[in-house]
């Protein structure tokens, strides 16, 4: 369950506080200590250790050795079958994002126009799946998509196909599952942008003679671009990093980066290699965010209306 990538905590003006400086300083340290201790010891340190491990050599019989190497990364980049997996992961990411965008936009558009009570109810239904374990959700799709599953039965009985289609353990099933998982995030993002559009802008363009279509493409769509953009980045990042859904709906047949990492760590026990793959994945995530912030700071916040 990942969220928006940037966080701003505005500083609250401490108006008039008494107490000397020393006890004030002590105050916030005590408050932060638990979190910092936990994070530094059980998040930051493990990540560092893992990163270091990705540069170690591995021996089948001994295990992780003490030598330094960049072989793990090199091996990944040079092996075409691994690069294929990387490409597949990215491809699934892109396709999921685009499908999500196309499906989510009209829905978000509709949602924004709903009366408050209805809107709240619909939002409840849209976001609730996010709170249900991905294992369950993916498994649910698995039941539908099997060779003896509901969808195939329907297709065969309606005469659309003669033999059941292989729907499971394909890129199709993975993308379907991922779209289902990340869809609410895209909706939220687009909705956020749409809601910020001042109604009077639309009215102004209509008074000037624009029809509904024109008003939409000339005003609404451009102004909702920030939401589209942010949503796409988030959805892409989530999809690429996801493990549960691709693993259940794609398995070993449609291996993605996260699955590869899992395999290395649990089957082959080649931890250095698994670590390297993991960090390549981290790298992709971080790059996505960096590119996003760069583009954001280059372009203006709002979009000028033509």
């Amino acid at each position: 369950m990942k969220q928006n990538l940037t966080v701003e905590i505005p500083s609250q003006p401490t108006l008039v506080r008494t107490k000397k400086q020393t006890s004030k300083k002590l105050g916030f340290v005590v408050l932060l200590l638990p979190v910092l201790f936990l994070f530094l010891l059980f998040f930051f340190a493990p990540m560092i250790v893992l990163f270091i491990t990705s540069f170690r050599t591995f021996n089948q019989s001994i295990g992780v050795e003490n030598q330094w190497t960049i072989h793990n990364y090199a091996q990944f980049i040079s092996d075409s079958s691994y690069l294929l997996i990387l490409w597949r992961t990215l491809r699934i990411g892109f396709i999921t994002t685009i499908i999500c965008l196309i499906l989510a936009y009209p829905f978000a558009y509709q949602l924004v126009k709903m009366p408050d009570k209805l809107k709240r109810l619909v939002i409840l239904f849209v976001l609730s799946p996010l709170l249900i374990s991905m294992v369950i959700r993916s498994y649910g799709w698995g039941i539908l998509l099997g060779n003896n599953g509901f969808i195939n039965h329907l297709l065969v009985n309606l005469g659309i196909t003669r033999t059941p289609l292989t729907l499971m353990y394909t890129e199709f099933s993975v993308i379907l599952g991922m779209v289902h998982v990340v869809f609410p995030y895209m909706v939220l993002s687009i909705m956020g942008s749409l809601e910020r559009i001042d109604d009077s802008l639309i009215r102004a363009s209509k008074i000037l003679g624009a029809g509904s279509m024109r008003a939409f493409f000339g005003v609404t769509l451009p102004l909702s671009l920030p939401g589209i953009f942010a949503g796409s980045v988030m959805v892409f990042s989530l999809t690429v990093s996801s493990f549960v859904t691709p693993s259940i709906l794609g398995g070993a047949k449609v291996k993605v980066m996260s699955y590869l990492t899992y395999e290395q760590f649990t089957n082959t026990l080649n931890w250095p290699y698994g670590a390297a793959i993991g960090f390549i994945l981290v790298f992709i995530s971080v790059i996505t965010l960096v590119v996003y912030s760069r583009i954001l700071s280059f372009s203006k916040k709002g979009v000028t209306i033509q």
Partner: protein
Amino acid sequence: MKLKLGSILLAIYSVVILLFLLTPIIVIVLSSFTETNFIAFPPEGFSLKWYRAILDHPEFIQSLTLSIYVALGTALIATLFGTLAALALVRYEFKGKEAIIQLIQSPLLIPSIVIGIALLQFYTWIGIAASPVALIIGHVILAIPFVVRLVTANLVNFNRTIEDAAYILGASKINVFFQITLPIIKSGVIAGGIFAFITSFDDLTVSLFIVSTDIVTLPVRIYTYMQYQYDPIITSISTIMIVLTVILIVVIERIIGVGKLFSAK
């Protein structure tokens, strides 16, 4: 007239989308009532036998118990640590604040599978075996970014003059915190707690790496079970998970609304 058609189409579309979103969940729940010995959707017949079957599989019950226990622990600790951190971050200025904010939010940026393997290696290295505590620590890391956000949202809008008013009426700092501040940010704290619970309860990717013969959370149990067997007990135990989660969703909706849960910036 043309407009009407457009809106009708959009409305139908929205309903279809909503059905799409609920599909897998409905499939699981309905499948759990099948009479057959294999998974069937639509279910054939109506039977509760797969719920009774859970009783014959003590490992599922054990996993359910473990998951709830760990989720409660996560909720408690994440809420406590997260609320204190949020207070510090919103109300104080200090060097390195930005860095700490980023650190606290960073679990959201790192693929959870990487967090999982990192913890596995780290625990192995320092000799921590799989245990409820080990799980709680991992889950707390995942949950704290959300708790901090939710509590921060409440704190940011907090009119601190109210605390001044309490002071001058004679309250001590502790009085002010427990009698004034905490009750007012209550909704953010509780929402954070429930969200932390759900994050822990649902988690697979990190829990997958913190396992032993006795320590298997429910999602992990379901995941591994389904790789070797394909019987409806998965659907019934999943339905129980769904019911539990739905109860929590209702609680959240009444406290702050599910929409606010996800838009806390």
